[in-house]
């Protein structure tokens, strides 16, 4: 599969961001968010997601690439796997990681989103980077599609439910969001259609088709 790419708005332009499976060194880097941005939820969640990743890594239940995930599923189709996805951009040299998503593949081949966090204060040319959260969800839908996963789900809170509501246009997300295949496809199509209005054809072809 092609790498997972989405676009964000940075300093008035749409720029590509790459979402990758984190290896051990990247997980350590994510863990350090808390030192640089103490007293933020994102900093705390990054550290806890990293802790959880290391815990599962000791049990051999984490994967660090597409290939590893494919191989693990091939070995045991009921395997439960955890992975951390990290968003980074070449143009955003100041930050090695812009956002994270800690996910799990369940025994019945669904994708669970446990942590989603955008690094606090990320900016480019002194302007905030916009669209990281929705872009992450778009890439997760692409990942699920690439692996033939029929469902993405996650528990929500009072603060996250309105976000999922807006992104997924699912009526009244309560304490759980579930994106079924049809909704996943609709969301990806809508996101791409809106991107088409902002990106030129070459850029679209290069990253999305």
């Amino acid at each position, binding site marked *: 599969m092609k790498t997972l790419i989405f676009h964000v*708005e940075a300093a008035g332009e749409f720029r590509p961001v790459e979402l990758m499976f984190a290896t051990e060194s990247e997980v350590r880097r994510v863990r350090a968010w808390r030192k640089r941005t103490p007293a*933020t*939820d*994102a900093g705390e*969640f990054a*550290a*806890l*997601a990293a*802790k*959880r990743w290391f*815990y599962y890594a000791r049990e051999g239940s984490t994967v660090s690439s597409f290939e590893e995930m494919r191989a693990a599923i091939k070995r045991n189709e009921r395997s439960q796997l955890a992975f951390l996805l990290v968003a980074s951009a070449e143009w955003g040299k100041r930050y090695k990681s812009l*956002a994270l998503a*800690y996910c799990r593949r369940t025994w019945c081949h669904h994708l*669970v*989103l*446990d*942590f*989603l*966090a*955008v690094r*606090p204060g990320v900016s480019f040319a002194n302007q*905030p980077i*916009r*669209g*990281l*959260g*929705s872009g992450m969800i778009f890439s997760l839908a692409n990942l699920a599609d690439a692996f033939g996963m029929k469902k993405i789900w*996650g*528990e*929500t*809170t009072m*603060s*996250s439910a*309105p*976000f999922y509501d*807006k*992104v997924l*246009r699912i009526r009244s997300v309560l304490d759980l969001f579930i994106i079924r295949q049809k909704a996943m496809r609709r969301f990806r199509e*809508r*996101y791409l259609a*809106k*991107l088409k*209005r*902002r990106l030129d054809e070459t850029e679209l072809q290069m990253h999305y088709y």
Partner: protein
Amino acid sequence: MMTKRKRDWLDDLFDYEAKHPIAFASPSALAEARLIAKLDKARRPRRRTQRNGTVHFHRRRNGAAA
């Protein structure tokens, strides 16, 4: 003349994200991660003696020169 693009769903999303920090955790995942962190902390050896300088003092006295 350039025409201005009409605002759409993606603009609204980006605005929402700009106003509301994206830092979400599933309650059960958070509880589990906190438990793991607690267990980890309990398992780690205490470093109190090193922090107050005692170890360095004894090392100096008992042959750091060796």
